[in-house]
């Protein structure tokens, strides 16, 4: 199914895609989102807005995605099953499409225990595989209950995968389920251990899935050795000690973090089946244009806007 998504067009025309993440604010102003979207719109193909990231309350991703649109960007609307049941998920997808949002990323979400309201009741009515299936079904014109959707939304549906959470065969198997459910693009957890990631990609290629889905490798530029050490403690993250030492030894750690991200992107481009990168510069969106420039990924392909 083709959708009006710029990201889909870029990928299907065989370009190496670049997406970046924008964190919505913890307040009622869309100004920073619009500023970040304006900053990123010309150096990336689409911009993800996170959905109550780390289970911490932020402005809703749907509203933030509209701010991205207003600033001339192309949002990837992130949607978690932690906070919504099947009614809310479907109505949010319809609302998003009605507002001109063309990409959705389906996630389970971090457990509420990690957030700023650990007493909350997690919803988890569906899991992420089921959410991918639900989004596809909506686009095909059916609600989960079989009723007709008129008109159906047009959404480029994506999902995430964490190649590092192990065991590898289980991760690959789960990716296969997401593809079978209807995911057309996959954004991965941040890559720091490139060997482990290459092994994951080899397993994916063995199944032939690199041809069925566009895989965008996650890149999180570390701002400092301290930040990297913090990242290494996030569930499901693998950060080699060597890299932490390298960051610690640098005179200008922020500069070193960007240099690492550029090297990583160059390396990722050489791995067969990697169709793009997803840069998650957590509260450091300003670093992205420079990283993309130095990695030689500019100018971005010009796909017609609508």
């Amino acid at each position: 199914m083709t959708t009006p998504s710029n990201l889909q067009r870029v990928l299907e025309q065989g370009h190496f895609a670049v997406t970046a993440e924008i964190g919505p604010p913890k307040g009622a102003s869309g100004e920073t989102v619009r500023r970040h979207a304006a900053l990123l719109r010309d150096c990336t193909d689409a911009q993800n807005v996170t959905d109550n990231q780390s289970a911490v309350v932020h402005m809703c991703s749907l509203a933030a995605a509209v701010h991205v649109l207003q600033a001339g960007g192309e949002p990837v609307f992130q949607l978690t099953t932690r906070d919504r049941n099947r009614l809310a998920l479907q109505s949010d997808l319809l609302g998003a499409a009605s507002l001109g949002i063309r990409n959705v990323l389906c996630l389970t979400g971090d457990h509420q225990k990690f957030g700023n309201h650990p007493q909350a009741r997690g919803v988890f009515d569906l899991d992420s595989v089921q959410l991918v299936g639900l989004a596809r079904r909506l686009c095909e014109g059916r609600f989960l209950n079989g009723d007709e959707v008129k008109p159906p939304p047009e959404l480029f549906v994506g999902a995430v995968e964490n190649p590092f959470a192990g065991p590898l065969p289980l991760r690959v198997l789960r990716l296969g389920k997401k593809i079978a459910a209807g995911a057309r693009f996959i954004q991965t957890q941040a890559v720091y251990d490139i060997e482990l990631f290459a092994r994951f990609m080899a397993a994916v290629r063995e199944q032939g899935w690199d041809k069925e889905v566009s895989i965008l490798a996650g890149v999180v530029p570390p701002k400092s050795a301290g930040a990297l050490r913090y990242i290494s403690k996030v569930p499901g993250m693998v950060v080699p000690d060597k890299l932490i030492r390298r960051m610690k030894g640098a005179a200008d750690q922020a500069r070193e973090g960007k240099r690492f991200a550029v090297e990583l992107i160059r390396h990722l481009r050489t791995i067969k089946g990697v169709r793009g990168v997803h840069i998650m510069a957590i509260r450091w969106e300003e670093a992205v244009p420079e990283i993309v420039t130095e990695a030689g990924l500019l100018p971005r392909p010009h796909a017609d806007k609508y």
Partner: protein
Amino acid sequence: MIVARRKPAPPLLAAATGRRTVLVAGCKGCVAVCGVGGEREVRLLAAQLELAAKRLGQKRTVLRATVARQCDPGFLSSFDSLMEQAEACFSLGCGVGVQYMAERYPAKPVFPAVDTVFAGGSPAAGLWEERCRMCGECVLGETGGICPVSRCAKGLLNGPCGGSVNELCEIGHNQPCAWNLIYERLAGQGRLEGLTVITPPKDWSRAGAGVRSVVREDLMP
């Protein structure tokens, strides 16, 4: 079995304040097995309630009785004469027992003295673990006998989330990731292909709010 935890004393003692005669009602079922609601615990709570009154210079009579199962109305009649004297009841039964007591004695307050927590078992002395959330649509046949509804912190039905670390669940407590256990069990049985099947969204109406009931006409009088 049903696993429960004793409520802390202060709110119970507060609820008893000013009441001269109360009943502490125990149960010999699950709550006795998990060490919170049997005869021994009835004695303990009764002593606490007596002592608390004495400290305030008040007089209080604490009646005590334990039945085979508070969750079975047939056993409750032995509380009748005691409840006639009592101004209130502290039930050490599970949530079902407390409700049946409250239903039988609607004029008197019944306070739960335990928090009913889960359906589980005791794999080792002093340890109880949840094993079933009574979802009404059991999937254990597909998951190698390991329950993802109760043992996965997110109740996922299609494999693990991205947060497991070293095969442990992301929410910590050193609990294994349920999906890792399922994977290993099915791998051991040569049934991994089962994991490639997409499980559709669950019918939670069967786990539902409102009253669920099981009817067996063959057992009815």
